[in-house]
């Protein structure tokens, strides 16, 4: 399973649990329009840490939350891990 596949699976899983209608995910999909809220993203990030063993937001740097789904995936794919 690729990093992208894992991320997509978590988006879908959390959407189901939170009873939210998930937008179709493409690189251009804005996270704001994904149908998920901030709590959902926190859940996803926590689960991805368990699944992938990394959390790109765990930094003292002034990190911003990605804008699009593509940016989100890249954040994980490019993270040194």
């Amino acid at each position, binding site marked *: 399973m690729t990093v992208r596949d894992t991320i997509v699976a978590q988006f879908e*899983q959390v959407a189901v*649990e*939170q*009873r939210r209608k998930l937008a*179709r995910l*493409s690189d251009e999909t*804005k*996270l*704001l*329009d994904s149908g998920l*809220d*901030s*709590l959902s*993203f*926190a*859940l996803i*990030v*926590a*689960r991805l840490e368990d699944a992938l063993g990394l*959390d790109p*937001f*765990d930094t003292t740097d002034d*990190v*911003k*939350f990605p*804008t699009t789904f593509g940016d989100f995936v890249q954040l994980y794919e490019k993270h040194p891990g």
Partner: protein
Amino acid sequence: MSSPSSIQHPGAVKVQAGMSRETVEGEIGPSFPIYFDSNGHTLFGWFQGPPAAFLADVGLVICKPFGYEAICAHRSLRAFADAAAALGVPSLRLDYLGTGDSAPIDLEADQVEVWRRDVAAAAAELRRRTGVRRVCLLGVRLGGLLATLATDECGESTPLVLIAPVVSGRRYVRDLRTTRLAALMGMNVSPESPGASSGSMEVSGFTLSAATLAALAQVDLKTRAAPATSSVLLMDGKNMPGAAAWAQQLSELGVRTTYSALPGLIGMIMTPPQSAAIPLEMVATFETWLRDLVSAVPARPNAGYMQSRSAASELMTLRSDGFAHRGDPLTERPMFFGHDSAVFGIVTEPRPGEIRRRAVIMLNAGADVHVGVNGMNVTLARQWASRGYVVLRMDLAGLGDSLKRSGQADNEVFPETALDDMRAALQLVRDRYAVADVTLFGLCSGAYHALRAAAAGLAVSRILMVNPQNYFWKTGMHLDDLQVAEVVRNPAVYRQRLTSRAAWKRLISGKVDIARIAKIYMARPLLAVGSALRDAARWGGVRLRYDLGRELEEIDARGVKIVFVFARDEPGIDLLKIEAGSSLRRLGERCRVRIIDDADHVFSHSGPRATLQDILSEELFARSTAISFAPLPNKVEKELLG
């Protein structure tokens, strides 16, 4: 006035209409608010006693999670209290200092340390009131961490019930930070909270101080000695076994530990209150575990403990130095009211001798408890009371801490009896405080109810409505039904998608809800036609049902001041234009519409929330007394629609 046949505690025990509240309590056990001291500060708590004639020699202190999770979990925590009461176990669920209805906290304080002591104080209070010798602590998320840390002060062998407890403070803070970052997406708001202490962090409208964040970073239960407990029931979320390793570690250290990963956590603490669900499997597991605990100690007659109520202080005196206008202390008074005493509220009373007889009644936002979104109702109530208003923050029957009436749907946001409850609230402030000038204030569904009250002719002077999303609600509708607000909000989105190849692919593959989109497209032109028809009917003197414009004009004609406040992107703005039509132009300044930039629906960021509070205060004070008021921030736009 409708007359419900009976009222029902959320725990599900039914009692008949006409019973006094004392009789109701005889059936379900005493259930009432209390105030108690914790290290010189006053805390609010809710006592739930057992209905049986015998009291177990075990009590339960319920430690809430932090922030938005606590708002979502409110009903579920009541369910745990009810389950305990059914086994003869009295409980006390507390609001930590600076949360819920408790007194304010120093913004620089280490909340973990203060709240840990609050948990210990609650355990002592429960012992004092009931005489139980053992107190069990039940904590959810951060409350689980606090309960664990408090065991040392709560007596030896304090049993623990922990639900998805925070084991690593560092990871918890990181999760909160992610939530906060995600919430700031696309918003032009400062990450710094105005008025907050340096280094603090605001998450979903609730703030942790810098000292708290530093303390949390150092807490890891896995690296500490085992808590002073004889047994632990630890329940994780089914898909989030965050405490499994610690549970294993506790077992190895000789602590009798029962661990389960169960469904229901997300529905309990991460789902908006109107949709939140009680985690039934967790409650059942807790009942089984508690039954074993109770059976290990002999029960004893409970004569005497009921008297603790009459001896209780049911008032809180608040020092007013934390408020905008310093002066005499304020008093907060919880009370049940209404013909069946089903409705609960807390009155913040102005200083003794206040001669201006004015009141604000605050209504639930959705199914949020009476403290309001982000606890805003508490903040505003104390500010406004310090400036002379009597302020009642209430729960409609079936919501928050009010009782549910038989036949009423659970957790109903638009109950048919809302008008009765508001009428009872008006009666209360008039009879008890001789108030002549009453303002109704509500956000979202609360705004809807305020509008309905004024439209129904209830004697109010002003309605302050924030972010209403609907102006009519028909019996039989459900929250999941198509809302008119969605019709207003979504057509542009769907128009964009019509030109998308991907959208057509999804349409062909059956992944698109065609019926729903068709409904949206059909509803929009219908709304426009309806608006034109209503304008024509008004012009011709014909009365139509569901005519918002006519209702607003009639409300205005009775001298009621009408104020709408919206976050910039709220669908309720367009809906107001469509449904009120030409009436808005006729009303002009008499129907005030204020818009706030960079705010979300519940004003979860402190900057826009401060702006909202300024606007509401201006409408209450400057517009009614002609006292000059400081200019509003530049970001605030005042505009008339039409």
